[in-house]
Structures are given as structure tokens and as C-alpha cells.
């Protein structure tokens, strides 16, 4: 079966595009990004703050398997229900520069929808670094792993 989530990463560009089609009406897809309790469930995170509006902000906190807490935050630049969220994303206490995320929500039919997530990084090098490293655990990344990455960056 073809994977539903596709990643488009061109060489020499400081951006990636993630696309995914859902068997959900666009309103439900959008809701999954807006309601803190739902965000918490699928992102596997604690939602400390989520202000769904232009000039709003958000902050999430995850606990890795070792019990270390990692925080993530951003500012919401654009918020149009069932259409678009433009926001920044920053990992606190890491050397990774803030990234810009353009989330487009699109209705394909009454029961299906598509999400396009366009992420812009500070540099090509940073993008490659983040993609290249086994970022699979991403947000749940163990603390020692972060240490390792940080030491490689310096």
C-alpha cells in the first residue's frame, strides 16, 4: 500500500512539503489542530497553551521515556478556520533555529480532505541536519540524543 504521508524535500532548498490525505471532512481535520485535548492525543504532548487566532501563541510540552521534559512553542501568524494556519515552531533549549510552517487545509470531498504542511527552515544545512538525523522520535527524543545532536552541531 502506498504510504499516505508524503515528504517532498528538494536538494539545496531550505524547505520541505509534507502532504497527507485524510478520510475526514476538512472541518474535523481542522478541529484536530484546534482543540487542545485532541492535539494532546495525536501529538502525544501536553498542551500548555493554544490560542487559535492571529497573533496568538502556543506551547507544548512532551516527556520522553527517560522523564525529561521538552518544550515547543510558536506564534500563530494567520488563522482561517478550515483553511489555513501559519505559525512558527521552535524547540526550546536547543540550538535549532525557529522554523516557519504553512498549514493548508483543503476539502477534497464531503468525507475527505488534504493537509499540506510547508515548512521553511533557517538554512539548507539546518533542514538537512534535521531530516538527516534519525529524527523519528522527534518530539519524544531522548535527552542524550539531543545532547549528541547538539555536540555534532558545534
Amino acid at each position, binding site marked *: 500500500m502506498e*504510504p*499516505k*504521508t*508524503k*515528504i517532498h*524535500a*528538494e*536538494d*539545496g532548498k531550505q524547505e520541505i512539503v*509534507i502532504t*497527507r490525505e*485524510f*478520510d*475526514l*471532512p476538512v472541518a*474535523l*481535520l481542522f*478541529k*484536530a489542530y484546534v482543540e487542545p485535548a*485532541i492535539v494532546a*492525543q*495525536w*501529538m*502525544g504532548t501536553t498542551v500548555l497553551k493554544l490560542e487559535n487566532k492571529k497573533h496568538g501563541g502556543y506551547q507544548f510540552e512532551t516527556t520522553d521515556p527517560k522523564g525529561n521534559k521538552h518544550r515547543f512553542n510558536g506564534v500563530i501568524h494567520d488563522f482561517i478556520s478550515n483553511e489555513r494556519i501559519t505559525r512558527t515552531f521552535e524547540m526550546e533549549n536547543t540550538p535549532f533555529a525557529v522554523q516557519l510552517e504553512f498549514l493548508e487545509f483543503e476539502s477534497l470531498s464531503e468525507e475527505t480532505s488534504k*493537509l499540506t504542511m510547508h515548512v521553511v527552515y533557517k538554512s539548507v544545512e539546518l533542514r*538537512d541536519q534535521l*531530516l*538527516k538525523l*534519525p*529524527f*523519528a*522520535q*522527534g518530539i519524544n527524543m531522548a535527552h542524550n540524543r539531543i545532547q549528541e545532536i547538539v555536540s555534532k552541531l558545534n
Partner: protein
Amino acid sequence: MNLRRDVFQAIADPTRRAILLLVASQSLTAGAIASNFDTARPTVSKHLQILTECELLKQEQQGREIYYRLNPKKMKKIADFLEPFRNLWEDRFNKLEAIMKKHPR
């Protein structure tokens, strides 16, 4: 080895991606590959050179002709490279979909 320089650079260009697709099914000579493109022959040669340097393509001498074929080991590297990142999002989105399917309308 500089991964960005080889693998990333190689798959960045649409012509090079098309070349990889062409030789995926069979070994081809440079001439046979070039005949699939409107691009000038030297341009195709340059692409073949880059792909060979990156070890995505392997050259095989057959009689007087040099055939290009895919190096599957290296190709897998590209997929492996993005796969953990993609999986992370696939898992999250699967969860999102499952949760929202149960959500009252």
C-alpha cells in the same frame, strides 16, 4: 562522505530523477538514455557523471558499450534517509485520523 553532496544533489534534479526511473527496469547505454530527453547529449552525460559519482548508477562494460544500471544499495539509502522522518508524521496523522473518525460530528 558528504551525504548532501552525493545523494541529495543527485535526486534534486528532475532529469536525474527521470534517468533513475529509466534505468530502474533495465541497463541502458548513455545513448539510449539520452534519446529519452530533449536535452542536449552533453547535458545528459553530465547528469550520468553526477549519478555515477554519487554511486547511484553503476557502469558496466558489455562488449564495446558501457551500460548504466541502478545501484539498489545506494537508492535504498535515499529512502532510509527520509523514512524515519516520514514515519513520525505518518504515525501522528494515522492517530489523528483514528481519533477524529470517532469524534461526534
